[in-house]
């Protein structure tokens, strides 16, 4: 169920990016898509009642990891991926917004139906 909601969020973002005419709204749509994917990644590593995967002395039983640790710790990798993805989307957001601002300076509008000098 949470996965379906996550996919719904993704589709809302895609709809917004494809259908909206305002440049800023398109950028927001792309961001919603990125957040949906980030949310999906975080959910992959989620576990009810899970705990941080840090090995302490109590977790070692006879030289190997205890069963409790293996069964209750969360997967840390998706969190590392999400951090990287957030940094990347921050970079692309900055570039997108700066291009929007430059375009506004040139054309005096954010409406993409009026920004149409390229054709063919």
């Amino acid at each position, binding site marked *: 169920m949470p996965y379906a909601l996550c996919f719904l969020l993704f589709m809302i973002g*895609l709809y917004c990016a494809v259908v909206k005419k305002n440049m800023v709204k398109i950028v927001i749509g792309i961001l919603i898509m990125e957040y949906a994917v980030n949310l999906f990644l975080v959910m992959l590593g989620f576990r009810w009642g899970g705990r941080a995967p840090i090995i302490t002395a109590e977790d070692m039983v006879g030289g190997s990891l205890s069963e409790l640790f293996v069964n209750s710790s969360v997967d840390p990798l998706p969190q590392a*991926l999400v951090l*990287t993805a957030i940094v990347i989307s921050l970079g692309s957001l900055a570039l997108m917004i700066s291009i929007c601002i430059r375009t506004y300076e040139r054309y005096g509008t954010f409406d993409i139906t009026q920004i149409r000098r390229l054709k*063919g």
Partner: protein
Amino acid sequence: MTIPLPVFVAIPLVTAFLLPLFGKKGKAAATALANLATLLLLVSAVTLVGQSRVYEIGKWSIPLGINLVLDGLSCLLLLAISVVSCATMLFSVRYMEQYTSKSKYLSLFMLMVAGMNGVVLSGDIFNLFVFLEIASLASYALVGFGCEHEELEASFKYMVLGSIASTFILFGVALVYGNTGSLNMAYISKAIQSSGMNAGLAFALCLFMTGFGLKAALVPFHAWLPDAHPSAPAPISAMLSGVLIKSLGVYALVRIIFNVFGVSVSVSWVLISLGVLSMVIGVFLAVGQWDFKRLLAYHSISQMGYVVLGIGIGALILARGGNIAWASLAILGGLFHLVNHAVFKSLLFLTSGSIQMSTGTRQLKELGGLTEKMPLTRTTCSIASASIAGIPPFNGFWSKLIIVISAVQAGFLSLAAVTVIVSLVTLISFLKIQRYIFLGELPENLQEVKENKGTMAIAMASLACLCVLMGLLLIPSLRESILEPAVTVLTDGMRYSTNIINM
């Protein structure tokens, strides 16, 4: 001496961060440094020919750490990237004097090279995504580098579609991780082999095909390319058309399909239909264009269609369990056309830049009679046009011939016929270019036009020499060291995982 693989990402990345420090005063020094870096990359790429190895970053062994993988296919792409970036960097020395803040341009250029090298060397899909974003972000900024109306518009369009593609790819990566528990390509492939495909993985494959298809500008996803490529400065158009759409789009797509998910009949048909659609629609849209660079951009779509068609036919033969030799021939044709296209299309964009710099326009109707005024540009442009139209003995002819032969061999006579017809239409549109730019009356306002000399001439002449000589890649000794290993990587398919794990 063996060169460690991270060098290919580290050199351009470090140079990219050093270059803006030079500022306005040290423009000459910055240019020299950037050229040195691309030259160094070219030399290192040449020394890697014929090698294959795995580099584990920080000595973390494979499933735990990040690894870089060099095999035949990566090596082929690295060579193409290095050759084209070296030539275009040489061209930019003089060409980019028209623009302000040259050091920022050089920095973005090196960042793009770092991203592309990373994509072709990366051994796990998440790093592939990260490098892909580095290269894409640099290219969005470079497309809008002039900051004029059209350039900003093209850049925004490219950026929106590119960001959607990246999001699709990241979603695919997340689905693959959720279903196989690994990000390393070799281990994902192993997991898929043992447990088989499920709905999640199939959906991930669709997402990858859409995402990389958008990056490669195959036909249903091509809308951004004809705007973005002509708007960039000429050397960047050459880089974008020459190597960016290949390394970010076709290479990644082919790597994921052949080596990670494994070929299947339905996926091969998707590849073949994407290829044919791009080939036909691209070329017919190109014929009607009057803007030189826009025409070339449409031809990029059409030529990428050839590459994907060749590889798709190979995939279909492999998926049906047919003759491996036929499959190898088809894939060889596709990959050979990929490198050939990198050379002749970047040369065509460089000549368009040279013409634009001398005459101030790239509208075919405003040009004419430049043969006498710009002899070198004329010669190189004719060589490149002959290559792309598939006239013997230039390189484009050989790769198109191989694709046609393999289509006939596989029993697709209609596909072979379409390939030949598209090639003829390509010839027509390049005759149009020759006719309107170099022959006919010289317009009044172009009487004072001068040929571009120096580094621009060297860059164009060296690429033209490559166009003539690259047919030699088919002679057995060179073929076995450069093209064959790349083909073997793909025909091996799922054996990739065991090869990597045992290496």
